[in-house]
């Protein structure tokens, strides 16, 4: 019994840390509708700052604490709310997710850049002091952690329930308009909540750093556990969030104490937070469709069929040339790029067309690779079956989230990736713990493709086929519906579209494409293991897809090449890795709002060349994809509607701001 009490106390300590982190997350979400994936990354960076002040510069502990929590963190929060996440809550959830994932990766890169890898150590508060409780010792640091969480809970409760602005904050998650009624200055409210939120992230980081250690990833990822806690409160209710956090802390503590140490249940212990997240998501009530968010994303132009065919063949010719001339080593790189490009095509479908975000796309590729290796059918049949299996798994992931919105879908992919990493891929029936599986190279219609050059060419054929398939789909009924769903889920619902199964199908199809890429990759590599599909790498993949343009096939091809080059570049200077991460992360922060990315700049450049530089040059070149402008100029009315309309040209349209103001005026006048 006494040890049960001990485990309870230990669980509460973990729970308190989760609670502090989760409450900051909830606060920023309720007031600005931005789910800050980077919450933990902020905690990590602030822990480094704390180390820098207290250890490196030798400032007094209390002074460092004050500086970090009351100056640096709020300033960072203010900055972010003012310049990064402003207005993001109104944007589609894919934008806000991409932006905060960008922050996540960018902050990790930044920390690596500022504080290069080195042994660093932050001691706990009052390391010598501890209190005995029966058989158990509670250190002063643990006590401080628990007390901090209580203080945070009480202060937040008072803020949200006993102040006028707090009431508005609470209401605003259901109805953002109400915030405007009460707060008057929504921006100020957003800044305030971000300042507090980041401060809480910092508090969590500082409290955890002495036990977790100063590490770029450990601290950042720990907070993912807090997502699960926040989810119990549906990202709105602070009391429920605290219950969730404490429950999760206790659950993990009891799990480590009482779960058997062998067999499947043993590995369950490691995914308790992820399972908790899944469970919470499943029991969450039906989510309401959002209305009034920003719509009508400017899409990259859809190439005409002729152009698509021309460019596809051009790409094949180029790869064919490479296959004939490059060294084997470089061909492996080309094959890797093709793999990433196909995975990014799956994101074009899911994110670019469908408006949903997956944080586990590489894991789906892993499922495809696993299936391919396990099937031991290195032929088209095995390939297609692998893709179908990946598709089924993708559908399965989307299924529990059927009734919920995009944010929850994205978070469930995160939980899914974690479960795959820690449980499934490692299992004996899969790759095995640390294991690898052999995978044969594909044979098509009985002809085995053994040479690396030939195989890479075959991969690029699949790349082009998938790209064509996507473009065709985009032109058809399904494509239109996808765009419609992305632009306005609410309207689709009121027009009678059951988006739930549609979404499951979409998700499955996207996972299937990723699975195809994984299967092809397995064949390229010959030996494949779970290490090739580390879930974390799905994040840079998503970001690069967005930076290069997640709405166009061209963007995917460029992005795939970029992702392949990333480690090659940082190989030149190992320290460059952090900088590249930072670049990609913060690049995505800015690109997040315009998912057409760099590819669109190329299209524009192409159009410019087209109009300025003589047409006779053009007549000698194959058609370029995506010059929507020319098609238009030709009078060939685009049947797809995705004409590129720059943001700037649209701003002269009258905006329907009246309704917000209308509401505001009424209540303001009376309140």
């Amino acid at each position, binding site marked *: 019994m006494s040890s049960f009490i001990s485990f309870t106390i230990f669980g509460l300590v973990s729970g308190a840390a989760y609670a502090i982190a989760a409450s900051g997350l909830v606060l920023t979400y309720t007031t600005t509708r931005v789910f800050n994936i980077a919450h933990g990354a902020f905690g990590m960076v602030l822990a480094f700052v704390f180390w820098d002040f207290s250890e490196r510069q030798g400032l007094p502990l209390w002074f460092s604490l004050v500086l970090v929590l009351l100056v640096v963190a709020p300033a960072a929060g203010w900055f972010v709310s003012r310049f990064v996440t402003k207005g993001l809550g109104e944007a589609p959830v894919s934008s806000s997710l991409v932006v905060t994932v960008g922050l996540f990766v960018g902050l990790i890169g930044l920390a690596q850049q500022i504080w290069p890898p080195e042994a660093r150590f932050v001691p706990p508060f009052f390391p010598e002091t501890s209190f005995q409780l029966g058989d158990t010792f509670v250190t002063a640091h643990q006590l401080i952690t628990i007390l901090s969480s209580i203080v945070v809970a009480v202060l937040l409760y008072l803020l949200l329930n006993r102040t006028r602005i707090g009431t508005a904050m609470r209401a605003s998650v259901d109805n953002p308009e109400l915030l405007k009624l009460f707060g008057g200055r929504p921006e100020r409210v957003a800044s305030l909540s971000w300042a507090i939120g980041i401060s809480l992230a910092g508090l969590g980081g500082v409290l955890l750093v002495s036990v977790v250690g100063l590490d770029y990833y450990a601290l950042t990822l720990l907070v993912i556990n807090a997502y699960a806690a926040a989810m119990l409160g549906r990202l709105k209710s602070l009391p429920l969030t605290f219950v969730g956090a404490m429950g999760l802390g206790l659950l993990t503590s009891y799990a480590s104490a009482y779960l058997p140490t062998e067999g499947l249940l043993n590995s369950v212990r490691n995914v308790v937070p992820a399972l908790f997240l899944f469970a919470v998501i499943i029991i969450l009530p039906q989510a309401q469709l959002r209305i009034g968010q920003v719509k009508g994303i400017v899409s990259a132009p859809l190439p005409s069929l002729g152009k698509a065919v021309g460019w596809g063949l051009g790409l094949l010719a180029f790869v064919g040339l490479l296959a004939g001339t490059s060294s084997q080593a470089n061909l492996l790189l080309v094959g890797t790029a093709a793999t990433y490009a196909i995975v990014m095509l799956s994101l074009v479908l899911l994110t670019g067309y469908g408006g949903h975000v997956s944080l586990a796309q590489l894991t789906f590729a892993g499922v495809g690779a696993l299936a391919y290796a396990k099937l031991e059918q290195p032929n088209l049949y095995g390939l297609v079956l692998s893709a179908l299996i990946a598709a089924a798994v993708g559908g399965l992931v989307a299924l529990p989230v059927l009734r919920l919105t995009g944010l929850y879908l994205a978070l469930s992919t995160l939980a899914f990736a974690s479960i795959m990493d820690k449980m499934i891929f490692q299992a004996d029936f899969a790759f095995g713990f640390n294991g690898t599986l052999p995978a044969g190279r594909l044979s098509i219609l009985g002809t085995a493709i053994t040479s690396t050059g030939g195989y890479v060419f075959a991969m690029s054929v699949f790349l082009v086929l998938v790209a064509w398939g996507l473009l065709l789909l985009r032109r058809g009924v399904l494509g239109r519906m996808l765009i419609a769903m992305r632009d306005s889920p609410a309207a689709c619902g009121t027009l009678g*579209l059951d988006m739930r199964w549609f979404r499951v199908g979409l998700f499955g199809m996207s996972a299937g494409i990723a699975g195809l890429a994984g299967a092809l990759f397995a064949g390229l590599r010959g030996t494949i293991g779970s290490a090739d599909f580390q879930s974390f790498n799905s994040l840079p993949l998503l970001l690069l897809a967005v930076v290069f343009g997640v709405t166009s096939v061209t963007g995917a091809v460029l992005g795939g090449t970029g992702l392949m080059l990333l480690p090659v570049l940082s190989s030149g200077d190992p320290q460059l890795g952090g900088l590249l991460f930072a670049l990609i992360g913060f690049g995505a922060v800015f690109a997040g709002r315009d998912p057409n990315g760099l590819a669109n700049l190329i299209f524009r450049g192409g159009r410019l060349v087209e109009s300025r530089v003589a047409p006779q040059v053009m007549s000698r070149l194959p058609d370029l994809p995506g010059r929507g402008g020319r098609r238009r100029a030709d009078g060939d009315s685009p049947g797809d509607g995705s004409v590129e309309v720059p943001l700037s040209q649209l701003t002269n349209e*009258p905006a329907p701001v009246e309704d917000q103001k209308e509401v505001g005026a009424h209540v303001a006048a009376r309140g």
Partner: protein
Amino acid sequence: MSLLEVDDVVVQFGGVTAVNHASFVAEAGRITGLIGPNGAGKTTCFNVISGLQKPTKGKVRFDSKTVTNMPVHRRSKRGMGRTFQRLEAFGSLTVRENVRVALDIHRGLLGLVKPGAADIDALLERVGISAYAGERADSIPTGTARLLELARCLAGEPKLLLLDEPSSGLDESETDAFGDLLKDLAAGGCGILMVEHDMDLVMAVCDEIHVLDFGSVIASGLPADIRNDPKVQKAYLGYSDEAPDESAALAGMHHDPALHDSTHDTTVLPVVPDEIGAVR
């Protein structure tokens, strides 16, 4: 039995009550107006009726079936269509494609074999926006976009139309034409529930009017009765300090949209926050 019955609905956001025990009905073949001062809860009522907002309390019955917990799309399948106050057009599709999507959804798999180009043209013609067929929906004027939303609804052959400020953005002659269209639709048996600030239009077309204030229905009746109801007068006069024109408008049953918009301290048109720039 009425086509639509809203029964004692309450909606709370955090500590704020947006709809407070509201009950009203709308009949088939008739145009029902839902009016009230800004923030009275009209749009929230629409959200509850169409299923986008779960009521804290209360019931919604539609076509003699309780639909309170029915998902949005199933209500639509049962014949409920709606437009939005803040536009929900598919911005990156053309006007024609917007309607086409609606038809596809309505017809399901049938749509695959039946192209329905003629139907689309007919619908665009009916609401009078054929001229914009090839334009992207986020590049057309607000009033046109509202008509587009109506055309989309009509593709689903609804029994009940929920129109949220359908005439804002239309000029006078367009509004007149729009009024005729509504009457025409009602004559065809369709029930129409309309939130509208243009009192001329409301008074001209509505068969019955419900007035909402602070989330409660404070008056229901024929247009003439509503016009003279002291409670209604007071509700509108409640903030006459800031908006004398508004109360005057009600008193004289004349309403100027531009003035209406100017009741707030920010400039009205055409202000577009940067981040919404692409939208409408």
